[in-house]
């Protein structure tokens, strides 16, 4: 009994600390025992926090920072100005402010070299957003061109957007060079009025 009293006496601070710790823990436990409401749905908002962010809704092909927005089918930058595309190519764009209420114009600035057009003939460029066609146009002349497609607001309620372009005619790899060649891309943007 004496030993026990001595033990208590010697370690009264430790015992007090342990007591406080236990008290706090019990309080926590009480808090934890409260019935939990059904958790809110786990959505892309939770996931996007750890995904690479896409900020730009407009970029030029010479912009190195934009490389991560080029998804597929677009070759390396040349002359610090343009990039060749393949027959199918895809990009990622952020949705501009206000687009979810007013819609936005998808604009693609490019060039069709004469040497390409002579081999392919008229070329039709089609754009898809979320696998749905949003615009198509046929080009019969070589030189600088502009593709434009109005995207309705209901398709622009989220960001970023994946946009696929499809050329019905292009130069397959191995014909002119080892790469597949479509058009020469300069700029792409999504513009909200």
């Amino acid at each position, binding site marked *: 009994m*004496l*030993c*026990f009293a*001595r*033990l208590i006496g*010697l*370690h009264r601070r*430790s015992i007090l600390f342990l007591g406080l710790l236990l008290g706090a823990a019990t309080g*926590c*436990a009480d808090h*934890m025992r409260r019935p939990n409401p*059904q*958790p*809110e*749905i*786990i*959505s*892309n*908002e*939770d*996931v*996007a*926090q*750890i*995904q690479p962010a*896409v900020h730009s809704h407009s970029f030029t092909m010479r912009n190195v920072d934009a490389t991560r927005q080029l*998804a*597929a*089918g677009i070759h390396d930058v040349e002359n610090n100005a343009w990039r060749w595309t393949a027959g*199918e190519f*895809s990009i*990622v764009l952020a*949705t501009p402010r206000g*687009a*979810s*209420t007013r819609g936005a114009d998808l604009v693609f600035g490019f060039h069709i070299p004469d040497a390409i057009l002579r081999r392919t003939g008229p070329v039709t460029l089609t754009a*898809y957003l*979320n*696998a749905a066609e949003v615009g198509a146009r046929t080009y019969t002349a070589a030189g600088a061109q502009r593709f434009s497609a109005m995207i309705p607001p209901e398709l*622009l*309620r*989220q*960001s*970023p*957007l*994946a*946009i*696929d372009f*499809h050329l019905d005619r292009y130069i397959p790899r191995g014909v002119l060079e080892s790469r597949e060649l479509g058009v020469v891309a300069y700029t792409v943007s999504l513009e909200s009025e």
Partner: protein
Amino acid sequence: MKTADTREEPSRTFATAERFIIQRCVQIQYRVVWLVVVLVVASVYLWLTKSGWARFEWKRDLDGYYDLLGRAFLSGHLRLPIEPRRELLALANPWDPDLNAPYRVLDLALYNRHYYLYHGAAPALLFFAPWRLLTGHDLPESFAVFVMCVGGFLVLCELLMVVLRTLPASVPLWLFALFLLTLALGQSLSNMPQRAMFYEVASAAGFLFASCGFFCLFKSFASVQRRVTWLFLCGLCFGLAAGCRPNLVFAAVPALAVVVLSGPRRLSLRALLSREVIALALPIAICCLCVAGYNYARFGNPFEFGLRYLMATASYQNIRPTIGNIFPSLYYFLFCTPTVDPVFPFVRLAFRWPFESIGYHFPARFFNGGTGGMLVLCPLVLLAVGPAFLPKKMSRHVAVTTIWSLTAFSILSILFVGSLGLVSQRYEVDFQPYLLLAGCIFMGLAVGLMRGRTRLWVQFGFALMMAWSILANMALAVQGPYDQFVQAHPESYLRLAKWFSPADRFRPLLNPPLHVYGHFYFPVPCSPGMQPLFSIGEFGSRYVVSEVCKQDNQITIVSSSGDPRFAQVWVADIALDRAGFERVDLDFAPQNKNMTVRWNGRVILTHPLPFLFTARSQVRVGWDATFGQKTAFSGRFIVPVTTEK
């Protein structure tokens, strides 16, 4: 005489009596702390044992391999009472893992049309058969592991206490309590109770007997009259340990070396044939002969444990010690870092390449069941070589001799187990407890030699290391080798996890409603291999959707749930009509626990899950981090979020 002295010098006698009472008080204090820690540890081990699938069933026959072996021994057989399937026996080569997979009983040895257990027979002989004989029922393997782990821990505690008593200065009470807690919870032993099967029975029994052996060895140092008796008991324990796990026979090497070198005639023939050496060596030799005879009776070869005839996968069939296995094994046993995660239980085992050298070619037979490096999870084991830095006058101290014996055995054990190319957290029990005990003894020794502020700082440093060891190993223990707690009792696991999860993003949720989606770029032809699209949760509660390229424009969507090694898999084939972004959605409905996968809005797969368990931060699109190995979808993908409500 003492009475006469008392009369003559009453004040001195009074002082002596007071000192005696104080000493007794101090001893009782240490005993009280010991008792409290032992009760806490036994409770934690019991809770860990019951946290997995294990149930203590006392009233019916069980199918644990050691239960079967116990029954076999009682019926006068060495073979297990299981008949191999006819399809297996009809195979041209029944040991071919590619052919026998559907018919085999995993991890048993098939020889002469009978199944045998390749693990040591001592636990069956000493525990399972007697229990069956006395009660008429089988001893649950999980209960046996629990008892052996607690028993081994008690012996280690006792050994630590008797060694600490020989030190020049005592350790503070709080440090002593931390020593005991670290011995129980700060090492891989705590990882065993949750999945306690025949593998763990052999390891736990080996641990119990080897610990008893070292305790007896120490008692033989301290006792003059009963030295031979203690050495005989020590030899018997080491022999029985070898009967559980043959590599534990290496414990005899430092024991014999100590006995021979501590005698008056060092390394002479008379020293080698002294009573002490014979008392130690004889029971070991008898046990080894029994094991050899047991092997001969089963396989016609005293050195064959059954590994040649094992029903197993190619990675660990017919294993033999080779030098080439040692390097990767040492990496996994010593250095392999775990994954540190902000989600409970915060530390997880990771499968890594040795020293992160991706593409390293493993030896032909190498099995990695998942380990955490001992030096990372329990850095105190490094202190086992501490006596090398002590003053020379300390080198013959009995505590130092004990440390060296424990350390030498552990090093031999690491090298031998490593040479087998079998790497698993439970194998660390063959050496880690002894290294840790050696480290604790050294800490006690070092603290006693220091004074003032240095002593305070060193104690603080040791305490920090012990706290880390306990936290990290308890995290792994809660998870267990196969993450069984969350699978067996998700609600209890959730309640526990909430205690430690103040941040909403990292707090686990059970069956939360979920809808996530992404746009993934699929080229035509498709990229080869398997690529993750979504991954949710971790390890035992893991859910993954992957894409596998089948042909040029054909892919398979694979939905997989549970531990990747035993995953439940559902698949759906998709034809790609063009290259481009495709939308893939994932929906979980808590009402029916169905996970639905949609491809561009069309339902392609509905996978019923037992449960969905994840924190928000563990929902990943386009990548997976199973077992710490990050793999990502090789193409572009986006995860759109709503811009304006």
